[in-house]
């Protein structure tokens, strides 16, 4: 959309014609409307409202930025295809929800990169917002486009479209960046766009892609990434909050009118996870583990319930069951703070052993809804390859406990296409699922268990042990899917769900892609591709054509085994994890050797703490028997000083209390 010839208003007939019009009108309780501001920043989520509104990171940043004097942080989401069509027909621009500023009128537009399949939406939102899509063509008075979030550890496929990236956690970095912008603007925009980018590049954790030149070898791999500006550091290390107690947490989040995906209080109990699953990107890029104290969490919970009117608190983290003070926290919340109120507590993920069945019952005392376990792989060998560190016995104990306690529905999450996987490993998924089914009969003496087996395709991600591995080809994945379909074909009581494999090819290409992919993104977007993560929108044939037209080979990115010495396109932005550590993990994977969790001391040498000068913050589970009154006596233990606690093998249960 060309600048300045657009309209801003969604007319009555537009809003009447679209699905879920509340996505577009704002006005929610808790939204912050600042008519005047020195710096206006749009927090842009490249998916629909109900997905974006569930994202904790933006809740935090919205709160922190809006507390700054003269700064207005506002929200904007990708309009669904029905609304986009009307907007384009009538030249209506994409605005923020708060003060209805076109994105082009904001100072900064910050996108979060949550998943690769949302990248076309970023281009589309920029265009709908009146912002020039290609960074190099942006005019002096246009906003700066920022990216951040988990996928920022390989931002290269988007390098043509953003001006700068915040690498790592934004709580401290973004306010610093905004202050630099404010000063630059107040001083009369010294040096123009480049002037600001140079100033921004001096802030730790800020990456400016145009300050780096990339050269390629003849075989197509990266030869070098070289700074072309003095201010550009050879490697940008991520920002990390040292102590979670020192950063502000949003206690007055927006309460939406419409239902959103996570329609409840999200209370972040800790950040990071160091279980070290070898496929997991989040586990590497959010290190180290940093906990909040239970007393602080209880105070936050009180304020959140009072301020929102929500009746459910989700204890949020990458693996909440690993929280060292989970038991006292749950008791404090359920038996004291909210004992006379209709407030329930839920866990997005839960370790399942006998202890955790207690937890499951605590958080789910009324409804016997389904439990979800994630063994991730079917055979023990394969679980050792991925360092999942759980045994069949753990799973059987967990499901027996669940069945004995009245649960009937179990959902099991698996992946196929993992490195070093054989057909026997794939078929072991079916064997394991059947054992769970029989367990129900054994425990209850009757049939009727409902087992759902959900199988996803493994996609290798940057900064994981498997970053060198080839993704399974489409035909290979389809074959493995057929194996499983066959194995489940005559089994009653098991519902086998398989995820679309073509989408994972695209995910795989962009996850480990380089700057050259920008051309494909641009072309696919121009040809109408958006919402790739939504089945009804994703067009695989179109993408294949686009790759061919751009002279790009998707196989080069997705299913090529990378050489040990290969320089990856993403190595100049870093979460601090040593490449040697990851390489060693990849070797150990081949040997099916385990690496333990560093959470309770005993550093396993990923080097994040040393590189970034931070520590694991763990308040250890040494809660005295007299519990609540002595909570504050729990000593802070900082790895590696703390003694190693035996790493309990564990399974993960997701959504203990689904809606």
């Amino acid at each position, binding site marked *: 959309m060309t600048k300045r010839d657009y309209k801003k208003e969604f*007319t009555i007939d537009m*809003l009447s014609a679209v699905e879920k019009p*509340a996505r577009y009108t*704002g*006005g929610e309780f808790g939204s912050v409307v600042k008519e005047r501001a020195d710096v206006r920043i749009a927090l842009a989520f490249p998916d629909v409202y109900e997905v974006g509104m569930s994202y904790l990171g933006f809740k935090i940043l919205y709160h922190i930025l809006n507390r700054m004097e003269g700064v207005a942080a506002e929200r904007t989401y990708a309009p669904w295809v029905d609304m986009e069509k009307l907007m384009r027909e009538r030249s209506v621009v994409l605005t923020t929800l708060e003060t209805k500023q076109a994105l082009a009128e904001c100072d900064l537009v910050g996108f979060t990169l949550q998943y690769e399949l949302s990248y076309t939406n970023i281009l589309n939102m920029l265009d709908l917002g009146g912002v020039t899509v290609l960074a190099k063509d942006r005019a002096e008075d246009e906003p700066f486009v920022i990216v951040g979030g988990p996928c920022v550890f390989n931002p290269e496929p988007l390098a043509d479209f953003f001006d700068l990236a915040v690498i790592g956690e934004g709580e401290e970095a973004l306010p610093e960046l905004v202050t630099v912008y404010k000063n630059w603007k107040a001083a009369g925009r010294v040096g123009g766009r480049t002037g600001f980018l140079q100033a921004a590049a001096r802030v730790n954790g800020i990456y400016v892609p145009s300050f780096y030149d990339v050269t390629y070898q003849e075989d197509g791999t990266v030869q070098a990434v070289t700074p072309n500006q003095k201010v550009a550091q050879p490697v940008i290390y991520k920002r990390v909050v040292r102590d979670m107690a020192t950063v502000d947490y949003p206690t007055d989040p927006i309460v939406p*009118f*419409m239902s959103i995906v996570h329609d409840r209080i999200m209370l972040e109990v800790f950040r990071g996870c160091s279980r070290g699953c070898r496929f997991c990107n989040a586990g590497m890029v959010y290190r180290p583990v940093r906990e909040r104290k239970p007393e602080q969490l209880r105070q936050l919970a009180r304020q959140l319930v009072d301020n*929102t*009117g929500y009746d459910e608190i989700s204890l949020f983290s990458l693996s909440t069951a690993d929280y060292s003070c989970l038991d006292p926290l749950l008791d404090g919340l359920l038996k004291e703070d909210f004992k006379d109120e209709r407030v329930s507590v839920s866990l997005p993920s839960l370790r399942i052993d006998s202890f955790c069945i207690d937890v499951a019952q605590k958080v789910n005392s009324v409804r016997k809804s389904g439990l979800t376990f994630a063994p991730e792989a079917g055979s023990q060998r394969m679980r050792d390859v991925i360092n999942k560190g759980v045994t069949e016995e753990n799973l059987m104990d967990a499901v027996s406990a669940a069945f004995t306690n009245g649960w009937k529905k179990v959902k099991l999450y698996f992946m196929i296409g993992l490195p070093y996987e054989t057909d026997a490993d794939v078929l072991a998924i079916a064997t394991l699922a059947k054992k769970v089914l029989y367990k129900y009969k054994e425990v209850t003496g009757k049939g009727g268990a409902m087992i759902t087996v959900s199988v996803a395709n493994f996609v290798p991600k940057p900064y994981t042990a498997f970053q060198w591995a080839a993704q399974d080809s489409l035909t290979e994945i389809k074959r493995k899917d057929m194996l499983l379909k066959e194995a489940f074909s005559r089994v009653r009581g098991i519902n086998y769900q398989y995820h679309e494999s073509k989408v994972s090819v695209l995910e795989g290409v962009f996850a480990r892609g380089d700057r050259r992919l920008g051309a494909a993104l641009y072309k696919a977007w121009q040809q109408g591709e958006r919402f790739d993560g939504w089945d009804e929108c994703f067009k695989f044939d179109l993408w294949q054509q686009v790759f061919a037209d751009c002279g790009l080979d998707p196989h080069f990115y997705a299913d090529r085994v990378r050489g040990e010495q290969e320089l990856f396109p993403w190595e100049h932005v870093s979460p601090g994890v040593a490449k040697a550590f990851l390489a060693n993990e990849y070797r150990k994977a081949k040997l099916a050797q385990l690496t333990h969790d560093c959470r309770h001391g005993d550093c396993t040498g990923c080097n994040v703490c040393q590189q970034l000068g931070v520590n694991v913050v763990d308040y250890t589970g040494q809660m005295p028997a007299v519990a609540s009154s002595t909570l504050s006596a729990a000593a802070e233990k900082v790895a590696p000083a703390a003694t190693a606690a035996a790493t309990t093998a564990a399974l993960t249960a997701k959504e203990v209390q689904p809606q």
Partner: protein
Amino acid sequence: MKLRLQITKDRSIRFISHLEYARTLMRAVLRAKLPVAYSEGFNPHMKLSLASALGVGVVSQAEFVEMELKEPVPPAEAAQRLRKALPAGIKVLTADAVDDHAPALMSVAGGATYQVVIPATDADQISQAVGAFNAAASLPFTKKAPKTKAGVKEIDVKFYIPHLEAELFGGKLVLRFDCRITPAGSMKAVDLVNALNKQYGLALPVELADIERLDLYRVDDLGRHEPMLAGAR
């Protein structure tokens, strides 16, 4: 006691659904910490109800909500607490209290006043149509009725809306009218525009109709309009 409030649904939030509106009220009641009562049973729900459902997109100055409180709270105080807990698009206009056994607010509404603003230019055609409408004894109209077997229902518009007031200025037609509510139901304001288009060959752009409910009232035995809440206005 039962707390009764007249509240608004402002332009800014006109497109939230009835369900979303109701849910927003419940959360506001919790934020305001009013001692609201819950039903018994396995899945207790808040004893809170709205007097009449409003179509999505319709602005209202006259939404009525009733909730049962476990212990009495002075209505003015309850209103004040709720004001702080509601989003900007919902305002509390009046508050009243009745005892638990008073008939449900839902059942007492006898009519509503609407204003419809819609783009229009042909003054002659419109005044003729409005004149004919006001003079007509009846005006049959087939409205959509998704819940019935036939999917449509035959109604007499004049039974619900006996009289129209119309003004045309600045390229906009402003219609004001009272619409009867009976225990068996009522009709949608937008269907008045549909009926006018159909009967008198007008081409009013229904999709742009800006509809606002100005009032909701009881009707006494003599047909006089009485406010929904005692002491209101």
